[in-house]
């Protein structure tokens, strides 16, 4: 291949990474035209808070997707974490609640990882099983009833503001920055990409691929646990059907944000862009009082559209 062609390829790649950011900006502009309420700065900042739970799940999901997997269990694990943290909040206080939520998230992630790397299960099957078990555990623990009585002051985490910025949004963005740093500036992060690109080649280069993969699912579980804590603080209750299908939203956000399910490509900022695009659609539809029945259909179109553009340009290139 000539140098010229390689240059072209590189330029194309640059474009691809910023494609969806551009879409986001365009959407913002369009929304601003459509709705006066949308134009307020506060509404935009609030988007961060509204989408923090999705955002946190997507940060963890980004790690998993970069390795070429998906984690279907994050929604259920988030709910389970919400329930356990709610009980701990009520009985033992704030720190215990946070610790309980994070611990169960990490534990579920560890099982997800071990099922794959030690037992040898496929990622889809392993996480599907844990998803079902975690949701089952939620129902067993709550008997299907909502748990009330989380002290109101803990609501700061979910609904509070630091100046104009929602605390939940701050937690999310801090996590994104941390995840970005880990992926870019640590060996572990580089291994995550290597595994997604070619697991075999990574293993033969002296990387302990099993360990890395396991840790990736632990990281994803950690974020699911954290999302559960934020969720219960946000609603001040824990519901058995909480965070239902959130795993799909997180996967959708990552895909829309340019992370490839083939693994090895994309970065955690993509997940942010994806979450915001999906959140924005909801927001503008609510503000313009479009029937909420339309929301899922539009979301679906966005997902297909984002990936289709990418696939078609790849087809053309080959």
């Amino acid at each position, binding site marked *: 291949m000539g140098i010229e062609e390689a240059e072209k390829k590189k330029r194309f*790649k640059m474009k691809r990474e910023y494609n969806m950011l551009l879409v986001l900006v365009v959407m913002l502009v369009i929304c601003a035209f459509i709705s006066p309420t949308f134009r307020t700065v506060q509404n935009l900042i609030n988007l961060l808070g509204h989408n923090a739970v999705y955002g946190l799940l997507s940060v963890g999901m980004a790690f998993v997707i970069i390795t070429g997997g998906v984690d279907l269990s994050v929604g259920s694990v988030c709910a389970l974490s919400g329930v356990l943290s709610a009980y701990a909040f009520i009985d033992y206080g704030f720190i215990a609640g946070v610790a309980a939520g994070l611990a169960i998230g990490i534990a579920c992630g560890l099982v997800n990882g071990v099922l794959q790397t030690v037992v040898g299960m496929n990622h889809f099957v392993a996480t599907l099983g844990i998803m079902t078990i975690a949701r089952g555990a939620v129902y067993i623990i709550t008997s299907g009833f909502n748990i009330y009585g989380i002290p109101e002051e803990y609501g700061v985490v979910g609904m509070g503001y630091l100046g104009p910025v929602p605390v939940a949004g701050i937690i999310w963005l801090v996590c994104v920055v941390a995840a970005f740093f880990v992926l870019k500036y640590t060996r572990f992060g580089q291994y995550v*990409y290597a595994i997604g690109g070619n697991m075999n080649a990574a293993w033969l280069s*002296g*990387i302990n691929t099993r360990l890395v993969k396991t840790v990736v699912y632990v990281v994803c579980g950690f974020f699911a646990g954290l999302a559960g804590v934020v969720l219960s603080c946000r609603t001040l209750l824990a519901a058995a059907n909480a965070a239902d299908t959130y795993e799909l939203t997180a996967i959708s956000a990552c895909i829309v944000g340019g992370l490839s399910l083939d693994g090895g*490509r994309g970065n955690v900022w993509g997940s942010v862009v994806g979450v915001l695009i999906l959140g924005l659609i909801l927001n503008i539809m609510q503000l313009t009082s479009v029937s909420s029945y339309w929301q899922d259909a539009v979301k679906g179109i966005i997902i297909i559209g984002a990936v289709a553009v990418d696939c078609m340009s790849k087809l053309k290139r080959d």
Partner: protein
Amino acid sequence: MMRENVLEMKHISKDFSGVTVLEEIDFTLNRGEVHALVGANGAGKSTLMKIINGIWVRYSGEVFLNGEKVRFKNPVDAAKRGIGMIHQELDLTPNLTVAENIYLGRETCRGLMMDKRKMTEEAQRLLDELQFDVKAREKVSSLPTAKQQLVLIARTVSMEASLIIMDEPTSSLSISEIDNLFRVIKELKDRGISIIYISHFLEEIFKIADRVTVLRNGRLIGTKAAGKTDIGEVISMMVGEKHQHDKKYIRERPSGEVRLEVSRMSQMRGQVRDIAFKVHEGEILGIAGVLGSGRTEIGKMIFGAMKKKPGYKIYLNGEECGMRSPKEAVNHGMAFVSENRKTEGLIMTASLLSNIALVPLARQKTPWVNHRRLEKTAADMGSRMSLKYSSMGQTADSLSGGNQQKIVLSKWLATDISLLILDQPTRGIDVGAKNEIYVLADELARKGTSIIYISDELEELYNLCDRILVIKKGQIVADMDNYDRQVTKAELFEKMITDREGEAVDLLD
């Protein structure tokens, strides 16, 4: 027996985007004949077979089947006309029964339902008729390789094949299984079925074939009646007196310490057994062997990428190491360049920088990544290997084969290594890059790096290596001293493909 032409190929030529791989080949096959086709790797055997089999449809020349001119559109078309092929990789569906595999795609049905009982009965009748010791209702996955091969033969016969192509049928069979296969082949002959038999093992060929055709570099060298020639003549026909860029890389005899010592190393599940050898400091040890001989497995076992039976010993620089994972090997300063660049060597969709950084990262002590230092390392390696690239950010799949191989070498040479295992390092790359790799290996050896050089290309081995091990069917059959670069191609070739005395005796049981 009638001397009747079943197949006649006239003036067959084939090129791939301008590169001629077959030139004016004539080939005939009589009814009930076993016709052996031999030649070194790349001689054009498989290309010729793929033309008969309908895989390649663009070629010049004519093919006559039973006197009628044919031009197959695809393998199904060929199969309908009675041509069956048994590939080296047995393409069976393991979780189905023998009967279901034999009749795959042609199931006996009653209405919409498959009539399993009738199918099994028919299959069993066929197997009995052929005197194959296989039960039709067994699952294929529970059968050993030799029996799976019989299933394939039965399938081909059931499709009323009049011509069966067997590609290296004995490469994974034991001696008694080979005997059994030969009995089967004789049975097929008696039924009037003609067989094209491709094999590297010449002694087998002389046991079974009626005629032998030799190809070399896409040309027909000759066809001989098996009774009127011998192994020596066939070898010299295969090797030819090719005079090529025969540059010999001569170094001083390595006098240093033993770098690697391996003893009693056997594969966990596989044919490689009882491997023992030493490699000295600054020595290049060649490993020769035909495809499937176990040469790659030896490299992978030393590198920890393939399971070994307990009881082995590996010493690196005098220290005993288990080498249970590639990570352990890499930490001890070992490097492994796989024969499968795309699946085992590179991350094709990642940048050159990420690919080169892989090993330096895996070997560094701190958890932090210093991008600037890695970029410098990559750029240094790029110029050291005279890599042709536009930016270290371009992806590996945008490079040519030779440059890709340089990336693989770069990732290893970017750190200090004491033992380099090269498995077919010049496979699929152009002559210029090949020579660069020879020069590089020679230089590394001069500076004290030990190299295990596994290769198909015999010239590489006798021009570059200090010693050459020959592997056959999982065992070391020869350890040739080549310090003075005096080993010849014919010598090496003979050791690779002829049977040892011990095995020849076994075959006569």
